[in-house]
Structure formats: C-alpha cells, structure tokens
C-alpha cells in the first residue's frame, strides 16, 4: 500500500548535471508499478490494457526526473524507458539539431 509523500529517485539527484543523471534502460521501480495498478481501477479493462505500457514507461521517467528541470529524450520499450539523452545540449547533439525525422517515435519529458 502506497503512502504519500513518496520518496522518488529524483529527490536524490537534484543539482546534478545532465551527464550525471540516469541514462540507458531504466528499471521500473516497484512504486511505479503500484501507482499504475491504482490506475487499473479507474479505467475500463481495454483502456487500461492499451495504456499500461505507456504509464509504466512515462511514469518511470517521471520518477527519476521529476523536478530536476532537465528535458529527457527517451524511447518506450516493454522493459521500461530507454533514456537516450538528458538536457537540451545532449538531445540537440543526438538528434542533429532536433531534426523532426530524428525525433520521430521518441518521447520527451519536461517538468
């Protein structure tokens, strides 16, 4: 049973520069799985089923980056979000100046 406030991972990462923030495939925390389970009861089964993966991916990124003031570029995967770049400069470099075709299919997270 979740009790609020939750101590999310971002609270321990405040003030770190983008290159010291999490990159790569992020593990979906148990707390995020519980938060997503709370959503299950709010939606019709087919709606929840269609969005469960999106919730797990997006809310995991939120768990790690909430309040850090850094933009995150990531890809949703069945195992969890894969963080490709953190911060404007990293994202710009990876996507050759944010070219729309290089951003296609990727998600960004901003506070």
């Amino acid at each position: 049973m979740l009790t609020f406030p939750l101590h999310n991972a971002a609270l321990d990462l405040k003030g770190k520069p983008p290159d010291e923030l999490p990159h790569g495939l992020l593990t979906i925390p148990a707390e995020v799985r519980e938060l997503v389970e709370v959503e299950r009861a709010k939606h019709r089964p087919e709606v929840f089923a269609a969005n469960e993966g999106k919730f797990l991916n997006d809310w995991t990124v939120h768990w790690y980056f909430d309040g850090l003031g850094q933009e995150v570029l990531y890809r949703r995967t069945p195992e969890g979000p894969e963080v490709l770049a953190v911060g404007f400069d990293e994202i710009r470099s990876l996507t050759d100046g944010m070219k729309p075709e290089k951003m296609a299919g990727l998600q960004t997270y901003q506070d």
Partner: protein
Amino acid sequence: MSRLAIPVNGRTLHATGDVMLSVWVRLNLRDGAGNFAARDFRVDSGTDITTFPAYEAKQLGLYVPQHPASVTHEQTGLEVRSGMLAFQIDGMDQTLYAAPCFFLGDPNVPPRPGTPRGQLPRNLLQPLHLLDVLKFSTEKDSASIGAPHGEFIIEKR
C-alpha cells in the same frame, strides 16, 4: 491532416498521489534558413503569451532579438525578448503558423543545473493567439481506448 487528437497526459504527483493532467504538442520550429527543429510545448491557455527559452532558440538558429525588452518575465524573473515563432504542427499538414513569443533568459548562457523549476524558461504554447486559423477543443470519447484522460483536438478552420 487537418485534425489532430492529442491524448491528455497524466502524471502522479509524488507528494500527494494526485494525477496531474497536461497536454503536449510537438511543434516543428522553422529557423532562419528554412530548417525545422522538433520541440514539445505544453498547451497553456493560462500563459499570457507563448514562451520559449532564448538559449535554445539561439542554438537552434531561430531569430532572437539582440536586445531584451525593458521588462522582465514576471513569473520567472528572466529577461524577455519579444519575437515570433514560425512552426508546423507535427501530425498535421505542412501549413506554417506563426505566434508571438517571449524568448526568456540569456540567449548566450544555458540555465545552470539546480535552478529552481519556477525560474526556468519553459516551452508554453498559448493557443488563443491561433484562433484565427485553428480551432481547439477537448473531449473524452469512451470509444477511444488510447486516451484514458481524454483528448485535446486541434482542427484547421
């Protein structure tokens, strides 16, 4: 396409457990050379005007006025440069739109890590400046399984 339905985004506030809702639209910003850069904007009818970080604008080759205005941005305390954004809406046709924009902060210096969230320049789209050419609405269609929190609809007039 002349119509775009964007799922409303929900995020849990870790402090309280409430689900916070927002709408994000990807705009392909056109620079001075005619190239495009994809940036996600939060749709915010509460902001007085569309805002965008001046540092990012300069890095992306957008036109940013050299001198700041004589006012500062009330919410963030940042310097203001008054300009325009030209953009296409990702997922719609190639119509080019323009909206007045405040470029916030120093165009030559990125915000330092650890800057409080309330003092950071943000990508905010004020849709009311586009009402001559676009129609905005919200709906929650029970038949739409991809949008559990509803949809934000953008349509060409």
